[in-house]
């Protein structure tokens, strides 16, 4: 009885202590991009179980993530699009890639196996500006002589919400289709000339599933988990490739990390036998002049632990780990963090 009472008293006291001084706990808070939210949260959970800090990551959107880290209301921000070097300089931020994602193109063409359909970036661009309107358009059939494509309208679906996924996809289309670049351009949200918008990756996937003749772009995980048919795209070598994890890795490895300012290397339209053309990293931002250096160090420890132990979880959730060489580059960047002359990395 007494022991129980004592025990509950101690717990109660501990709880009060937490309430009174929550900052004392090793909890770290992050906010930003929606795309990496599941993997950041899952890594955080695993890390806490392994004895590390507890993580609260909230998917507010990349823009909000950047805002919050600039306001220093969170310990780290996360963004799908890299922040420009001048801005990082001005706001005293360090940026590094944390995990890689790929965007795939899903289709719903009645009577045709979507995974067999081959498109070039140029043709995809013309579809998304409304220049190509039917599935049996000569430009599509020329690429797919073996397929019997029906004469039905193409209904392109896009993200209704402004998102990093749209940014990557439109950047890719703008780089391979001059027409798309001229008529639409690249950005988190753009003025689409045709088609319909659906909320989130899940919405786009459902729209394509719903509408006969639909085509849409989603994060790889959505195609993988929901059995959607993802078509083949021509990559930087002109080879038609099916989206696969080795193909994403090949693209990531070929990125020009040496000349990447602030570790933002482009991985779009890479050459190679398997390289998938729409691959991109998502980024984490930490302050160079943190109010509490220990908390920033906790963030680095969390990311480092995830780099070393997070591969299984990443695989299960369909994310792609950074290549080991790139991970080491990231750690080298951390070593430049030295608020008040005290380096935060390597942490002991």
């Amino acid at each position, binding site marked *: 009885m007494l022991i129980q009472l004592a025990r509950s008293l101690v717990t109660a006291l501990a709880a009060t202590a937490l309430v009174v001084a929550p900052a004392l706990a090793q909890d770290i808070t992050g906010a930003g991009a929606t795309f990496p939210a599941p993997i950041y949260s899952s890594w955080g959970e695993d890390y806490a179980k392994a004895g590390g800090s507890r993580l609260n990551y909230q998917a*507010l*959107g*990349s*823009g*909000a993530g*950047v*805002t919050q880290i600039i306001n220093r209301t969170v310990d780290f921000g996360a963004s799908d699009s890299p922040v420009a070097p001048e801005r990082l300089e001005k706001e005293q931020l360090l940026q590094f890639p944390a995990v890689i994602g790929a965007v795939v193109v899903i289709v719903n063409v009645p009577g045709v196996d979507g995974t067999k359909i081959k498109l070039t970036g140029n043709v995809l661009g013309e579809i998304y500006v409304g220049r190509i309107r039917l599935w049996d358009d000569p430009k599509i059939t020329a690429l797919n002589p073996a397929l019997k494509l029906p004469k039905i*309208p193409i*209904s392109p679906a896009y993200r*209704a*919400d*402004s*998102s990093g996924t749209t940014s990557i996809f439109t950047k890719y289309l703008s780089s391979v289709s001059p027409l798309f670049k001229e008529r*639409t*351009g*690249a*950005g*988190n*949200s*753009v*003025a*689409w000339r045709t*088609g*319909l*918008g*659906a*909320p989130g990756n899940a*919405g786009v996937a*459902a*729209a394509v599933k*719903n*509408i006969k003749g639909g085509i849409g772009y989603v994060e790889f995980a959505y195609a993988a988990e929901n059995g959607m048919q993802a078509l083949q795209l021509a990559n930087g070598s002109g080879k038609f490739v099916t989206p696969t994890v080795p193909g994403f890795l090949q693209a990531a490895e070929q990125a020009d990390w040496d000349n990447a300012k602030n570790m933002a290397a482009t991985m779009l339209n890479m050459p190679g036998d398997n390289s998938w053309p729409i691959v991109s990293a998502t980024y984490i931002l930490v302050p160079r002049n943190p109010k509490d250096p220990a908390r920033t160090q906790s963030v680095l420890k969390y990311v480092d632990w995830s780099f070393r132990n997070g591969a299984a979880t990443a695989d299960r959730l369909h994310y792609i780990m950074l290549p080991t060489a790139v991970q080491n580059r990231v750690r080298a960047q951390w070593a430049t963090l030295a608020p008040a002359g005290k380096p935060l990395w390597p942490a002991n």
Partner: protein
Amino acid sequence: MSTPATPAIGARKIHPADTTFRLSLHAAGAVVVIVLLSILAIMFMGGKLAFDTFGLGFIWGTEWNPVTQIYGALPAITGTLVTAILALCIAWPIGFGIAFFLTETCPEKLRTPLGVAIELLAAVPSIVYGMWGFFVLAPFMSEYVQPWLTSTFLWIPPIGDSFFWFTAPPIGVGMLTAALILAVMILPFIAATTRDVLLSTPQLLKDGAYAMGATRWEALTGVVIPAVRGSLFGAVFLGLGRALGETMAVVFVIGNAIRMPDSLMAPSATIASVVANNFPEAEPGTLDLAVLLALGFILFVVSFGVLAVARLLLRQERMS
């Protein structure tokens, strides 16, 4: 009772408790005004950059292009008004019918369960309405309703050479589908409040009408409705309010195309959906954020206008 011994008729002394009572009620009223003014101020200041950049042209500009940074609000304003008013036109008769049924003809035992059931519709999270609209209603619209509407109403002449009423590719989502979903969402608000208003009508009024030989319907339209018209409009405002400001459900079914619609079934966008879709990614200090806050400001102006017109109609009807 602690009333003074010699109360002067018509000149009751105001008791201190009454003063506090009145003051606190006035304060509550003031809170409402202060909240709205503060929201308006935040929207206007935040959106000033948009008004400075585009002037009043922001309101009737038809182009919305984040890439070239040209923003016009007319497509979103159009989508908002069309969907909200369509929704009201669909939901009000049904909601009123439900209320009439519940108060007049429904068997006594069924009243409470049915009433609770209707109110339950108000409790379903709006994202569920969105998903229902997207997965159930939209395919039904594209398969049956849209082709039928297109072929049946082909004879209606278009407005100018750009608006074709019911002619659109049948993709299921668009303004009409959004209006239907909104109608379902505001239905419980209209039905529940109308029912309460009808229930609170003194029985004497109805009895008088019945005594004159009026049918139920005549008692309703001839006596009850004129007596409670003001309160009935409250139900309409509740519904309209939700329709104008609803976001999550609309995002699923409206098609999210920020361009001028070319038919009632075309994909479109509403002010609330544009703001919610783009707000999380908009960074402070940019024109992108300013246009969203300016849109929020415009939505208030739009509701202001709609309400003002509604009140004017109400007053005119009262006078005639």
